[in-house]
């Protein structure tokens, strides 16, 4: 259903009669509820630029006022196998760029720095139990902790995924 809607949208643009065509198609396609239509458009927005990155190779993704924090693929790769994750306790007040935990790999104990200021509201117990999740799934199951933001404006200072990729390619990382 979604596919056909997209095709129609493309077709409409080509023909130059976008909105009218979509509205008219309601007669021929199974009736699309308003919600379904909204779902299509909002998910299109959500799929791009979800994560913001720091120059210390952490990422944060926002949902309302709560950010989920993890480390990037580059970071988990350079750490090596993580054998222990020391995450901040729930209720800890954190400062942007402040030390908030550590990840121990076979190579070293590396400090974790918080990308934003706020209060920790959840930590990933699965990662504490199975630190290898950070290596296998650093953006999904290997999330580290969630923080309630006190200064959302700090997010504007962080890099987008594109900017972060560029940063990795430069000499300065």
């Amino acid at each position: 259903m979604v596919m056909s809607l997209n095709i129609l949208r493309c077709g409409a643009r080509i023909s130059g009669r976008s909105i009218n065509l979509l509205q008219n198609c309601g007669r021929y396609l199974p009736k699309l509820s308003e919600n379904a239509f909204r779902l299509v458009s909002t998910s299109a927005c959500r799929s791009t630029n979800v994560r913001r990155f720091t120059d210390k190779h952490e990422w944060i993704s926002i949902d309302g006022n709560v950010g989920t924090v993890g480390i990037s693929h580059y970071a988990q790769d350079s750490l090596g196998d993580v054998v222990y994750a020391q995450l901040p306790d729930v209720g800890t007040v954190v400062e942007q760029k402040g030390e908030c935990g550590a990840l121990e790999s076979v190579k070293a104990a590396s400090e974790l720095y918080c990308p934003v200021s706020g209060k920790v509201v959840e930590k990933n117990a699965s990662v504490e139990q199975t630190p290898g999740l950070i290596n296998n799934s650093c953006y999904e199951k290997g999330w580290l902790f969630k923080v309630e933001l006190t200064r959302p404006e700090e997010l504007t200072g962080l890099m987008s995924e594109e900017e972060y990729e560029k940063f990795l390619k430069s000499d300065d990382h």
Partner: protein
Amino acid sequence: MAQAMAQNMFRISQVSLNNVVRCNAYAFAPATSQAKAYSSASTTDKEKSKNPIQKSVFISQSTDIFTNLALEDWMYRNFNFNNHHVLLMWRNSPCVVIGRHQNPWVETNTTNVAHQGMEIARRNSGGGTVYHDRGNLNLTFFTKREEYNRRNNLEIVSRALFREWGIESVITPREDIVVKNTYKQISGTAAKLGRPNAYHHCTLLVDVNKVALRQSLHKDDKGIVTNATQSVASPIMNLCEINQHVKVERMLGAVGWEYLRTCPETLEDGGQDLINKQRGFQLINPTDNWFPGLNKLKEELSSWDWRFGKTPKFQVNKSFRVPKEFLGEGEMGVQELKVSLEVNKGIIDDVTLKLPPGLLSTNGFHGEVDVVTSLRGQPFSERAVVSLENALHDMSTKEGNLQGKSQFVMNCMRQVMQSV
């Protein structure tokens, strides 16, 4: 070469207090602006050629593990390593040092170690448990995060051993130093990476008391279930066993000079020319005067909360066979008392006693509740056993015929606590 080195060592030992004071005042002003600048941008090539990296060797005058760990931490947090790398060399009185995320009760017998008058310390870097005494030389290589290179540091140590005594050594894939053809370890390594600074430290077994080492690192199966990092036991040997002329005092010079003569980026041997461009050796007196904030770091590192309380949560499970005389009449077979303790942040969170049916007399054994409440909230230590003893003693005086049984339960609890 050896003579020149001996002369240099003599000069080092004669450094006057004035010189040390002057050097200290220059070197140890905390670089607060540096500490706050989290930029990960490395220096450009142009800057590097303008300001080549210079090296210093610092030798700590303290043999207290907590002072030395505090000094190491102070330097990691406050020192400015822009174009300046430092090798810190330090030795300690006998002690056991566990890694940051380890469980001291798993890694060593805490009661025995305490009885021998040794401290247990927890360091900030990862890795396993080690034994220190004055026959062991600790080396900490400080650099900026971008310039951290563990293998290079170990290469320098390996070269020093060869240049001074002709000892051939190999750096394993795990990045430990082993003696060639024996594959026995003479060094253990750990590291801490932060921003802007990082350090790699390692031990060097020159003339360590191997009996004491084996005794303090002896591990039994203590029924502890935990996700704390575990040590990897390796066969070790002292360098003095390979060559009787290897002594810690000479090692200071051997490694120090090799460090100064080696180019930090390329590992090339720059010889005396490069040495002359470095900042040389300094004797360090780690006091709060020269290192503001050092005492606070030392207090934190020697606190129970850091050394034991920082232990990741764990469970202790033990079973004890109940002697026949405590079982009720008509009870047959082997019955077991199962003890399970949950310890979080070094404090006993929960106690579960599984009493076999035979241990319940016709009057009932009500000690379970008292045992549990007396232990909950206690630090996991001998103190907890004492409070347990008191609880069971009170109980047994009330109900005389339970004395034998409560004694048995208490002995089991004591065994659980003391075996770790």
